[in-house]
């Protein structure tokens, strides 16, 4: 009782006394969870968890699911039900005799250990190794296409906002809204149709694949040149498919920023135009684009399937379509899991970069919602 001298002290002590250890722990957890980085992390884990669950549901529980289908197929092929189920459970590495929740937990723990099972068609080839052999091509093509469109698009958008209502502005705004409303796979088809087949400017048939079959992969100039040659059309499609978004959104963000008080203040202080453009306007207008970049990456990786099929570019999407055609479920399921994880990681990185670049978020917390 000696400690209690001020009313505030009493209040504090009472509060501490009333709180159970559990609620104190929850308080800690709550404080941690309020930090934007922790929130982003929880969101990421939740998304991956949901995807794994959805995949399990699709493969195992949905009417007409592949496991039941395989058993039916084997039974019709002359096997009795028990041995058919045994073959199927071996193929899918699912213990069909176990109750559903145990199958689910087993599936979950396999996924966490990175064990995505084996391909149906190439016996003994793990799904992981198949994905790892195609993933770099997609990452390379999507990554370079998006990087190019992001840098060029945001620059054009910034300039368009500065030269508002000029011919430059009207031209790039129209081009941007036109091209961003056209589905990217139609752009890909049009490239083949117009530049490959009609005008014959591009040798589209030779450009198929990720690299020419006769060339030895390695860090040689010949191989790198060949890879770039084959990646040109997918990269061009990803570039054209996304540049409109950047022009329009960067233009909008810059126009909004230009009206902000601190820009007027910076002008009044007589700061150089170039400094205002980069440090004041550019930096603040580009912030929202970064979270947009993460969302767009997800959409592009998803949409890449068709682009890769059209150009016969052997990336993840191409492999997915092949797996769908061959009904190779472990590969399908593995590709869904890996691409979702890749997108979740991209989002997480974007969240982190965002909070680094915008100090307000780091301090205030919870500003990421909305």
């Amino acid at each position, binding site marked *: 009782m000696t400690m209690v001298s001020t009313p505030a002290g009493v209040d504090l002590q009472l509060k501490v006394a009333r709180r159970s250890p559990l609620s104190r722990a929850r308080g800690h957890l709550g404080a941690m969870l309020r930090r934007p980085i922790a929130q982003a992390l929880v*969101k990421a884990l*939740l*998304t991956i968890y*949901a*995807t794994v669950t*959805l*995949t399990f549901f*699709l*493969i195992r529980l*949905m009417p*007409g*699911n*592949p496991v039941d289908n395989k058993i039916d197929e084997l039974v019709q092929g002359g096997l009795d039900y028990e041995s058919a189920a045994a073959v199927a459970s071996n193929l899918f590495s699912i213990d069909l005799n176990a109750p559903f929740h145990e199958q689910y937990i087993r599936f979950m723990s396999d996924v966490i250990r990175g064990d995505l099972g084996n391909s149906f068609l190439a016996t003994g080839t793990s799904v992981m190794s198949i994905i790892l052999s195609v993933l770099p091509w997609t990452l390379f093509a999507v990554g370079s296409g998006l990087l190019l469109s992001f840098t060029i698009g945001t620059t054009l958008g910034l300039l368009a906002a500065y030269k508002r209502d000029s011919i430059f502005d009207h031209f790039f705004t129209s081009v941007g*809204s*036109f091209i*961003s*409303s*056209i*589905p990217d*796979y*139609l752009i890909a*088809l*049009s490239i*083949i*149709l117009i530049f*490959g*087949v*009609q005008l014959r400017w591009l040798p*589209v*048939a030779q450009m198929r694949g990720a690299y020419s079959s006769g060339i030895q992969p390695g860090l040689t100039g010949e191989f790198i040149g060949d890879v770039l040659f084959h990646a040109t059309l997918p990269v061009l499609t990803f570039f054209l498919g996304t540049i409109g978004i950047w022009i329009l959104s960067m233009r909008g963000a810059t*126009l*909004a920023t230009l*009206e902000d008080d601190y820009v007027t203040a910076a002008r009044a202080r007589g700061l150089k135009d170039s400094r205002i453009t980069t440090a004041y306007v550019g930096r603040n207008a580009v912030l929202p684009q970064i979270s947009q970049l993460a*969302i767009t990456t*997800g*959409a592009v*990786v*998803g*949409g890449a*399937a*068709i682009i890769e*099929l*059209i150009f016969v570019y052997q990336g993840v*999407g191409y492999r*997915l*379509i092949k797996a*769908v055609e061959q*009904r190779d479920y472990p590969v*399908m*399921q593995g*590709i*869904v899991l890996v*691409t*979702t994880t890749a*997108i*979740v990681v991209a*989002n997480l990185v974007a969240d982190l970069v965002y909070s680094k670049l915008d100090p307000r978020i780091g301090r205030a917390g919870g500003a990421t*919602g*909305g």
Partner: protein
Amino acid sequence: MSGALDFLRQLRKKPTGIAGFAGVLFFFMFALVIPFFVPVMDTPDVSAIYQPPSFPAHPLGTDNQGRDVFNQMIHGGRDILLVALIAALFSTLIAVTFGSLAATLGGRVDQVILAITDVVLTIPTLIVLIVIAAIARPSSFWMLAIILALLQWASLLRAIRAQVLSLKERDFVEAARSLDLGLFHIIFKEMLPNMRSYIVIHFIIAMTNAIYAQAAIVLLGLVPVAGQNWGIMLYNAQVQGALYFRDSLWYILSPILAIALFQLSLVLLAGALEEMFNPRLRSA
């Protein structure tokens, strides 16, 4: 009716809006009304393969099996349009219901709905769609539309939620709340009428998303839809190699242009509406 007239009068000031509106109207007529007056002509004719455009026999030429391209174009839009409409309707319904619930109730409900939204927003729609289509084989367009809607409501929900959050602070909602008119009344009688334009805009955007995803999986050959469809034309062109024939220009360009122009019309209309109803954008 006066609302519609007023809308057209306002739209007149926006050239892009008129273009978009005219385009949307045209495609609705073309895909939903004209097919009633034109019989399907899809018997292959080996003697008329890859005919160049000629009027009035084959305005857009013939395809790799000698069928009239223009006829396929007339009958190929209906399914795409209907699926887009149904999918947009369902996703708007989901988004409006749960978005306004999240914003008005707040707290735990809001957190849970937002968390689910974030998850759905992150999952790569098209890849999941490809896998679902591969397993479920959606044969009716209702099923396809519902699958599309279930994958596409998330960004709409976020927008609706943000809108409701800002409306919640307005005086008339405050008044309704102090009169204790109930949650249902507040959402459906006070807030939704004020978000009508907003919902229409997002309905249009949801349609463009549905068309994108739908044409994509049809083009991949994952939907066993019988009959004629712009996406199936592209699928055939891709699979049968017609894409690489010089004579196939009109045959392949027609569905590409139809889908692209329809998408463009929808986007232009949505953009014009947004400028009309959002005074902040209009002044900027």
